[in-house]
């Protein structure tokens, strides 16, 4: 492996080309010289898989307003979200949707020609009274349409792209972030991107679970890089298990199926959500539906010969409605479940879908760190999208709030980073810039140990699935900790058999696995320390929410050896409105 490093200089460098990264890039490119590096071609980022919609209180079909949306977001988060960020996002949502529509996003329409909207889990009118039509959508391909539209816009805007570049190290000088070292996957070359401002939009990490809805690339690389650079991971234990993953494969079946009238049935044919969420039933938030499903299965009420899944019935809305509004689901069900959902119910199980936490930021997407018990800004470092915790999702994200999060905080970080770059010069790269990334790369490229990707990855995902899943206990998670510590030593004895400089997937998978082990370890430590149940984090041994001791963010750091669990206050005060005080969460 060559150690020659090619140098680049940009005002703003965006890492990641999903919805958040591209929106940040197209906005920043309007003001300053901006580049994006991405492990895959931009249109292959995971935003492409988002299906059901994007939330905004447009009120196109029935009365709605952003205050209700904000209430739903805060309640949905089980009061762990930062209310300044939640207000900012919900208030800005209608304007963002209009901006996307003006870029050409082909939203479905109402009879009047306005943007069509449909109900989604946890989104209600009048502070929880009834479901409301708030999700704007493009059939069941909303993310697909959005990602391509944003890509097209950013290219038109002059953003420079470095596609198939894999980030190896986040570079700091003192407190400031000054760049990123990356590997060109197409030829093995090393590149140093020196930037005035860096925006991380690196996505999620649910590949650490055996059953997940995520793309192969969602391995938590950004989080691992940030942690190695000394930054924290906020609410690391907070994952979303989406209720309707295809049985065994885990691929997502959008909540939009239930938004369009689909219902969940147990093995006895009962519509069991009526028991668990009498008011909004199948449209309860995801954490509640997933838990209810799992409980039905554990109580022996599952469907199929092994009573190990639930059925999602949609045939009653008719063939025409399915093919018009849910065509992608029809195709996915055929390929991954062998079921034609026009006639038969889809077998589903909860699937790891989303990390609710991330790199902590303020409501403008500026990364923050704790100093002397206070949040302080990190100069030159911003984060948006799934890798960031601004935090609008807290302990549970509402469906369709993720695409909204991407575009709102993508745009805001783009603006903030461009502004920062205009007001500040380049901070020099430190003398040893990139040496850690190069060392990591060489360690794997030249390794001659006995372990390889497959068995270690399987061990990782199995322990996370079994022990840090929908239902968690001290005992289970202690087992996971033990397995992960073992994995930390196994990966020290590792071989990358592929020695090619061109598109070396074996090497990338090794680096990703190394990141996933760190990420899984941090998640497990956070989950062990949070001795309460809140949102998607449910502990059988601590089944109640404990606001007295745990209405606070987990803040996890790593020194490369040990994981340190700390806490940070939740920002309960919104920007302009009254706080929503924590209440019991019933639907």
């Amino acid at each position, binding site marked *: 492996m060559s150690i020659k490093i090619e140098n680049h200089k940009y005002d703003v460098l965006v890492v990641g080309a999903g919805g958040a990264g591209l929106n940040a890039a197209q906005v920043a490119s309007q003001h300053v010289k901006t580049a994006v590096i991405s492990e895959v071609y931009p*249109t292959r980022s995971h935003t492409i898989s988002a299906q059901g919609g994007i939330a905004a209180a447009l009120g196109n079909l029935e009365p709605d307003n952003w205050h209700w949306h904000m209430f739903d977001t805060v309640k949905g988060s089980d009061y762990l979200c930062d209310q300044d960020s939640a207000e900012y996002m919900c208030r800005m949502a209608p304007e963002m949707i209009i901006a996307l529509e003006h870029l050409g996003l082909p939203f479905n329409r109402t009879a009047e020609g306005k943007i069509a909207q449909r109900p989604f889990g946890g989104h209600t009118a009048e502070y929880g009274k009834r479901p409301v039509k708030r999700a704007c959508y493009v059939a069941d391909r909303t993310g697909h349409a959005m990602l391509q539209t944003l890509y097209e816009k950013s290219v038109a805007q002059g953003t420079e792209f470095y596609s198939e570049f894999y980030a190896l190290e986040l570079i700091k000088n003192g407190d400031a972030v000054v760049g990123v070292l990356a590997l060109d996957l197409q030829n093995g070359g090393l590149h140093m991107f020196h930037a005035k401002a860096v925006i991380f939009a690196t996505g999620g990490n649910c590949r650490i679970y055996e059953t997940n809805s995520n793309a192969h690339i969602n391995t938590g690389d950004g989080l691992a890089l940030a942690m190695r650079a000394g930054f924290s991971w906020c609410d690391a234990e907070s994952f979303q298990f989406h209720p309707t993953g295809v049985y065994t494969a885990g691929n997502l079946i959008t909540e939009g199926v239930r938004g369009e009238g689909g219902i969940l049935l147990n093995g006895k044919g009962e519509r069991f959500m009526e028991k668990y969420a009498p008011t909004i039933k199948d449209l309860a938030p995801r954490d509640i539906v997933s838990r209810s499903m799992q409980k039905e299965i554990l109580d022996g009420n599952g469907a199929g010969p092994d009573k190990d899944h639930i059925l999602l019935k949609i045939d009653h809305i008719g063939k025409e409605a399915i093919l018009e509004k849910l065509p992608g689901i029809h195709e996915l069900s055929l390929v991954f479940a062998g079921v034609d959902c026009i006639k038969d119910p889809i077998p589903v199980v909860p699937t790891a879908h989303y990390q609710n936490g991330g790199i902590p930021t303020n409501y403008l997407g500026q990364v923050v760190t704790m100093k002397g018990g206070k949040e302080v800004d990190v100069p030159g470092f911003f984060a948006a999208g799934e890798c960031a915790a601004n935090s609008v999702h807290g302990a549970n994200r509402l469906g369709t709030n993720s695409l909204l999060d991407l575009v709102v905080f993508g745009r805001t970080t783009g603006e903030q980073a461009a502004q920062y770059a205009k007001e500040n010069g380049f901070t020099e790269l430190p003398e040893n810039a990139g040496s850690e990334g190069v060392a990591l790369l060489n360690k794997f490229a030249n390794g001659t140990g006995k372990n390889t990707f497959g068995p270690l990855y399987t061990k990782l995902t199995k322990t996370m699935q079994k022990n840090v899943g929908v239902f968690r206990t001290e005992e289970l998670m202690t087992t996971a900790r033990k397995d992960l510590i073992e994995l930390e030593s196994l990966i020290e004895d590792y071989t990358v058999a592929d020695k090619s400089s061109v598109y070396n997937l074996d090497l990338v998978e090794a680096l990703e696995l190394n990141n996933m082990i760190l990420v899984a370890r941090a998640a497990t430590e956070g989950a062990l320390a949070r001795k309460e149940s809140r949102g998607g984090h449910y502990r059988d041994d601590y089944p109640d929410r404990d606001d007295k001791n745990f209405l606070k963010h987990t803040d996890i750091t790593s020194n490369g050896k040990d994981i340190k669990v700390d806490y940070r206050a939740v920002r309960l005060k919104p920007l302009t409105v009254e706080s929503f005080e924590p209440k019991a969460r019933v639907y």
Partner: protein
Amino acid sequence: MGKKVTFEILRYDPDKDKSAFYQKYEVEIRRPGMLILEALNQIKWELDHTLTFRRSCREGVCGSDGLNVNGVNMLACMTKIEDISTSKIVLQPLPGMPVMRDLVVDVEDFFEKFITVKPYLIRSTPTGDKEIYQSEEDRKKLDGLYECILCGCCSSSCPSYWTDKQYLGPNAFLRAWRYISDTRDEGTDERLKILNDKHGVWRCHTIYNCVKACPKELNPTKAIVEIRKMLLDKQF
């Protein structure tokens, strides 16, 4: 142990191979409905760590894993092994695009051609602060056009695309037609100028390979014909 299926995969590593060669692998079928991408992962993780290919979403929307299976372009993640009836399955990189290594092709030119047709809303009428209204009927005109996943299966199946290096290809035309068909767009004339070229829509020989190859069952040839009709209408 499940039954085994023989895969023959075209291999090439510019770091060490003078020319490409086929390598055989015996893949175990571990579940009904097993997909070609699962076979590739099995080979990579258990049989030969050096095999390389692209993949990401593994559910047919990101367009990473288009490849050539027994002579036909398709997505590895959406193709069931049991649906291929031959005794062995031959995998090659997408044809007509430079091979970088194994099943990975150079798609830079493909993306550049896509961008050439100005695939974004062009509009001089002010948009105001509300959505631009569009009837349900007008919105339906975009169905069958916007769903393209940029996998390259269409362009790389097209003999005109193989022989004319400047030919924009079916993918770019489908996207151009998606914007021309959008009632909100005002860039038709700008785009038609680009498309009305010997390397543009006139190069298509209506071979229909693109239609057969498209894993999303879209119809680029129809888009090409519609653009030609529009060009002729404007001329006479």
